[in-house]
């Protein structure tokens, strides 16, 4: 039963990550991305997926898709119908799946975050419906594949599993909410393993939307810079295979890291603007810390939401300063959105993988585009590739509608 859960746990099990897959504009897979984030490479370029000639801003973190998809149980006809978002999802999932060593049998729940599913297909549908209203060719397929649940079911088909699918659409916090929800399912004893993550592809509508809000940077995305003037949009996906420590140990899995905390809170200040003091951000970080039984002094690095918009970064800087107290003065913070842009529903998941990379490699990912840190930042913003001793990393994700989520990862000692 989904409810009430037939399982009871006397003490919550530890939850570990045994597989991680990622694709961003920095590249496909762990190695390219780890190297890119470690060095603070910037992978933004002119958008070629749709017409941006009339937009204020014309660059984004567009992914160069590999020439072929990873092998899976999908048939060639199924593969031909996949849209860009599903391909991103499938590529990230294949890497995580392979790394985890999971087998394609049995029940496996999936929790994914997305903001727009297969929006590109929806756009193609709409354009054809208007320009050629009597032409129905390809339209049924677009309707079907546009929907996020179809994309999730394609993953189930690709790797041969079945189980509940939960799709969280909490705007830009979706990826972190998805991972956090998956963590909770394991901690409460509902399951022993969960596939989780987030994905979103660039689409014309969303690009135009952020541009209409004048939220996109017409110069360069510089989170926490005193002269910052907006965000960059990007696309990608990240998938994690989560399982209880006991389950991972039982099958002799290689453990990449541990997920130790999750919190969320809602900011009711405004649909698109955070409360200037970042009250919900503080609540979200506090909730994550409480679930992890940690204090700010324990955190060694924060991967900030850090979009690069004046309002977000000011509110988040306030929130981190208030939350960390004296610890803020020495707590390294960076936003990796300077490298790949804001990945919306994928952001929280990709940034969780970046934290995992940093914990494993013992380095801090820099915000390399920053020139003059905003004086509102009472914490050091990581600007250059830096080696560091890291035990715990916290990742923030904040979204439209006031959706705030924070997750905490821990280094795994072999």
């Amino acid at each position, binding site marked *: 039963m*989904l409810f009430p859960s037939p399982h009871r746990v006397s003490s919550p099990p530890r939850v570990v990550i045994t597989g991680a897959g990622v694709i961003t504009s920095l590249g496909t897979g762990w190695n390219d991305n780890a190297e890119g984030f470690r060095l603070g490479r910037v992978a933004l370029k002119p958008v070629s997926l749709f017409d941006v000639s009339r937009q204020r801003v014309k660059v984004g973190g567009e992914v160069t898709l590999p020439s072929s998809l990873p092998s899976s*149980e999908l048939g060639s006809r199924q593969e031909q119908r996949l849209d860009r978002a599903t391909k991103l999802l499938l590529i990230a999932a294949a890497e995580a799946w392979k790394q985890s060593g999971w087998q394609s049998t049995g029940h496996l729940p999936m929790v994914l975050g997305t903001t727009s599913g297969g929006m590109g297909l929806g756009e193609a549908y709409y354009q054809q419906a208007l320009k050629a*209203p009597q032409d129905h060719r390809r339209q049924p397929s677009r*309707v079907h594949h546009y929907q996020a649940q179809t994309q999730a079911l394609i993953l189930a088909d690709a790797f041969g599993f079945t189980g509940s699918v939960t799709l969280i659409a909490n705007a830009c916090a979706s990826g972190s909410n998805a991972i956090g929800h998956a963590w909770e399912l394991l901690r409460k004893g509902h399951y022993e393993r969960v596939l989780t993550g987030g994905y979103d592809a660039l689409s014309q509508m969303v690009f135009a*939307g952020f541009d209409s809000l004048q939220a996109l940077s017409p110069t360069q995305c510089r989170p926490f810079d005193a002269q910052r003037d907006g965000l960059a949009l990007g696309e990608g996906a990240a998938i994690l295979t989560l399982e209880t420590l006991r389950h991972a140990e039982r099958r002799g899995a290689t453990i990449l890291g541990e997920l130790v905390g999750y919190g969320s809170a809602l900011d009711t200040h405004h649909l698109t603007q955070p409360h200037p003091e970042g009250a919900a951000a503080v609540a979200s970080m506090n909730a994550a810390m409480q679930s992890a039984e940690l204090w700010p002094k324990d955190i060694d690095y924060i991967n900030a939401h850090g979009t690069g918009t004046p309002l977000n970064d000011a509110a988040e800087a306030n929130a981190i300063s208030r939350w960390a107290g004296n610890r803020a003065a020495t707590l390294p913070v960076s936003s990796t959105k300077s490298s790949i842009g804001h990945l919306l529903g994928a952001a929280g998941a990709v940034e969780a993988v970046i934290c995992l990379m940093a914990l494993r490699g013992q380095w801090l990912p820099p915000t390399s585009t920053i020139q003059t840190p905003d004086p509102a930042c009472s914490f050091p913003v990581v600007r250059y590739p830096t080696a560091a001793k890291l035990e715990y990393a916290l990742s923030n994700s904040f979204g439209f509608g006031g959706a705030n989520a924070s997750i905490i990862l821990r280094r795994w000692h072999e």
Partner: protein
Amino acid sequence: MSNIYVNGCGAVSPAGWGIAPLRAVMANATPLPSKPLARPGWERPLTVRQVPPPEPRPAFLAHARLRRTSPITQYVVSAALEALGGDAPAVKNGTLTLGIVLCAMSGCVNYSRRFYDEALRDPATASPLIFPETVFNAPSSHLATLLGTPAMNYTIIGDPGTYLQGLALGAQWLVEGRVDGCLVVGAEECDWLTSDAFHHFSRQLVLSDGAGAIYLKRDTGTPNPIELKCVTEPCLFTKGQRRSRAVKQVRAKLPPSAANHLLSDSFQNIPRFDAAEANAWQDWTGGRLSAKTILGEGLMAAAAWQCVLAIDALKQERYAAASVSVVGCNQQAIGAHFVNSAFKS
């Protein structure tokens, strides 16, 4: 015993604003008439069953956050306030921690279509006022703001079976003590674009819109409350599991047929779509309610109406228990079971 109870329900449907008109049209057992909806480029309109304009205009629309909202948010808020009843002040003053789970399939399609249309014409003049209202979680954010609750708030998407997943999620939050009450709302809004999309799969299908809300608590303080007994694991429609098998699996997880039990199913009088559910439930001997045959295919809202109507029938003590069977469009089959505590002994 799950110890999770229904503390209130609310609905907005083509029958009108509130549960009373919904109950009335179901009692009448006659499908609501459909109305034409212009489809650009076609001489012949599409047909839909839409929510009628509210009369009088709801007072909540005066709230600053709700002035520009599209119909889906208005439906969500109205259904939620009806379900919440007298608990709204306790939420506002912080003595009751309220969680919100909003479930949608098409979501904020009116403004999404409008905004994209503007962006195609000229992105330089596309309205920044409309875009934020296109995100899936805009309605739940507006509702939380109106009620003044910063607590757990998830928007989950998928086919209509997702509404029952939402019920399970809300119930779980209550069990874990993370919230004192939880609103689970399913909602959709009509648009020619959605109707056009479904037209490719069936000419008989008539889309409808509205919302349904269930307010769950650990105790209700009222005699003979309705208990959410269980929500089954969803059974997916995958390459390896056909729709008919998935529905049968759900059927097997719910209690057996009984004369004083109600089945609220997702039939819509389209044999091709109903076949799997008809086959799985052919031996049912209890009462039966098929909301979509009267109200149309309201997607997530329809799944919520199925639950609201089942609970309403239990409240009137017409049945001892009710099973809800939701066979979704393209994702899953799932079921839920409610019991009337008065019949327990």
